[in-house]
């Protein structure tokens, strides 16, 4: 009994920790890495926690043009991401819910978050936020197929329709003919990851009121707790999408808690990689971004084709 209970408890603890507490750390890590690469000391790693705490105390200000939709953005996004986080395996620890086709639910929950964010941006009636919204939907239209081709390829490789077996597919590395496709999938998803989390080279999370911005410009008018939700949601998204990239890379370890640690390590590594990428590459011109995303689509589509032969 206790043998069965303990791992489950551990798993729950890990999940609660990863989903609720960990996320703000990741952006902090990334910024720290970038600072180091730039030779600065940079803000503390826990900076985002402070910000969130402060924002939670602050008075939210609403423009007269906005309606309840303005609020639905951050709330809906975070809620959707939390639900999505229930479906995703963290490393080789099983998720709370795994069933056939949860892949689609997962993707559509992300879509729901995007939809609400876009609407709340449009609600302000500001030109900038409208522009951001337009770009968001346009680029996600390219990111979506990349994601799905990846899923398709994994489904074909693993013969399963559920996220957990798909992502816990480290076996593919050993099977030689599968490793190539997997790498391509991860490459495609890496691009999706950067785009969806509005990282350089697609977008720059640290600037404001700049015309090349996509995601950040949509949240200009949010303040107080809604803004806190948005920031938290962004970091949560890093974790959730990060899991997609990290999971397939992790080996299976003997003990459940080891697997948990491995996942955390992987996540940290991902943060480092992102930091390095961000500080070594420049942001694309806006008309280059679609090509970048199409590259992602092609990568995962090609992975699928490789699996056909």
């Amino acid at each position, binding site marked *: 009994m206790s043998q069965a209970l303990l791992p489950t408890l551990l798993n729950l603890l890990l999940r609660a920790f990863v989903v609720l507490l960990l996320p703000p750390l990741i952006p902090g890590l990334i910024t720290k890495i970038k600072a180091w690469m730039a030779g600065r000391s940079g803000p503390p790693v826990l900076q985002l926690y402070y910000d969130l705490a402060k924002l939670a105390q602050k*008075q939210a200000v609403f423009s007269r043009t906005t309606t309840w939709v303005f609020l639905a953005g951050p709330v809906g996004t975070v809620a959707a991401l939390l639900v999505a986080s229930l479906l995703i395996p963290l490393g080789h620890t099983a998720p709370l819910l795994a069933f056939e086709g949860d892949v689609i639910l997962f993707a559509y929950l992300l879509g729901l978050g995007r939809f609400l964010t876009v609407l709340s941006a449009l609600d302000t009636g500001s030109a900038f936020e409208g522009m951001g919204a337009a770009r968001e939907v346009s680029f996600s239209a390219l990111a979506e197929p990349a994601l799905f081709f990846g899923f398709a390829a994994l489904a074909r490789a693993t013969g399963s329709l559920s996220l957990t077996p798909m992502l816990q597919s480290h076996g593919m590395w050993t099977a030689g003919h599968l490793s190539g496709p997997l790498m391509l999938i991860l490459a495609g998803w890496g691009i999706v990851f950067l785009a969806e989390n509005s990282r350089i080279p697609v977008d720059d999370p640290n600037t404001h009121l700049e015309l090349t911005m996509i995601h950040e410009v949509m949240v200009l008018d949010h303040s107080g707790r809604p803004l806190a939700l948005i920031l938290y949601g962004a970091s949560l998204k890093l974790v959730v999408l990060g899991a997609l990239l990290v999971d397939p890379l992790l080996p299976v370890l003997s003990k459940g808690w080891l697997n948990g640690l491995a996942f955390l390590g992987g996540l940290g590594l991902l943060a480092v990689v992102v930091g390095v990428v961000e500080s070594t590459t420049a942001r694309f011109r806006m008309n280059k971004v679609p090509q970048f995303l199409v590259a992602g689509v092609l990568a995962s589509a090609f992975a699928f084709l490789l699996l056909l032969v």
Partner: protein
Amino acid sequence: MRLYLLSLLLAACSGIPGLFLRRRGAEVSAGLMTVSALLGLGAAVGVLAGGPVPSLRLPALALGSPSLLVLDAVAAWFLIPVLLLAACGAWYGVRYWEEAHGHPRWVRLVFGGLTAALVLLVAAAHTWLFLLAWEAMAIGAFLLVLTEDRLAEARRAAWIYLVSTHTGTLCLFGAFALLAGVAGTWDLGALPRGFAASRLGTQTFLLFMVGFGLKAGVMPLHIWLPPAHAAAPSHVSSLMSGVLIKMGILGMVRLITWIPDPPLWWGALFLGLGGVSGILGVAFALGQHDLKRLLAYHSIENIGIILLGLGLGLVGKSTGQPALEALGFAGALLHVLNHSLFKGLLFLAGGAVVHATGTRNLEQLGGLAKAMPWTSGAFLAGSWAICGLPPLNGFVSEWFIYLGAFRAMAGARWPWSVGVLAALALIGALALACFAKAYGTVFLGTPRTAAAAAAHEAPRAMLLPMGVLAGACGLIGVFPMAVAPALDRAIAGLGEALPASSRLAHLPLVTVLALTLALLALGLTRWVWAGRRSEPVPPELPTWDCGYAEALPRAQYTASSFAEGLVTGARWVLFPKVQGPQVQGPFPEPTRFESHVPDPVLDRALEPAFRLGARGLVLLHFFQTGQLPVYLLYVLLTLLFLLIWMVV
């Protein structure tokens, strides 16, 4: 059967009292329609709950057929949206279409007739009756599109509709004739094995596809759909888009039930048509500025999704994968129901906007969410559902189809279904973009014109039907397992021994997650709400916008600018017409920029072709010169020709 016939009768007669009553005629007819809907729904639910399949013999009309009306599960399944939307539309029309718009009595009469025709059509099991109901439906819809026949636009739309529907009917003539040649009877029923593979079978199938495709608005044949939906009164548009075009799907479903062994290429054709309609439909929707045209193109998109489902089912049927069959057909049929719910809802809400502001042009709307919160909520619900976002019903049906596609591929039997996956993903993303644009430009931001600023909330009689439909969307979305058994009975006829859809998809988990999502949202909202301080916020704050000074409504992102990126990205299929002078110089003159996306088939291919053909034929008119000797010459030449032909 008694219930069904009673509801048929009531629907047919619902408009008649209104002709004579001086006042409250609308309410009376709406009431009659409601009663008829309740009766019909009773009958349908009875069948779908596993009750006996009622059928009616009409020996009095010597139509050479034992049973003419069979209310089987498929019929019952299609009957539900018909009656639901009809009743909602009737109540909606009470206030929406008043004397101001002209002859509402006739609109009500024809509306009732159209409903009756639809009710008759779903259960028709005999060629003659089928064609009768089919044409009655076509003419009813034609007259309703023509309601505002003073407007040239409405006349043109109605004419295009009339012509295309008649073309479809002629194809059906041919198809049914061939079918009867095989079956030896005009009863519609199962066909012998091997027929589908034969050459005759191919001809029949293609004729049916054109005939039904024209009605359903499958992409190359969709020409009538956008203008007709735009021109018709909104409650009619909702009925047309929600139900009428589904009758094409009904026909295809019937065809599938008759064919025991479809060839693989049938399914492939369905998938191809579905992909084209889906992607191009939503792509062209992105380019529209007319709210109702936009919705119409989305109907094309959803027909595409339904075809994808049917195609997967057919592939399963021909390759012998019952699971795939069940998932595809279930997804398709469920999407038929879902689409009629949320598209009906969207058209009603859009109609309320038109009713309030008098324009369908997105660029002249904006900020309506403040003036008409309920309508805005209804439209949001509809958009939410049509984008297939959980936890509303659109997601469930698309989910079935996704599962089917995954299964077909992961089972390593049929890798091509990855195309279906990609198509669905792309459609989903684009639909999301399109409805973000529609909802955002119409309801959010600030009003762009005085008309939009002066908008008022729709009367309760119009809000109630929207509420009903939105509720239905929510119910199916959150509790899909409630409809699963009915769905299984509906698809049971489409293949042999199909597994229950609930065994293939974990519907209860959807409920769990939906509720979790709702709870989380609720909790977060409470948390945010609790964050308000006691001292009131000065209400007159403009949008901060990084300190941008007082943004004018004109400065907002318009519908076209919102879609500009995607439209130009896809200009190699959309061919947008952009006209706007290059702005140059430090102080450019004020100028206009316009861009719109004409229909590829109608505006770019058919109309020029027909104009050309007509000009060519008019050239032939010189044969009728009016000169008597010439006419006599024709007689002489005919005579000589025939005599010579006879001799040699």
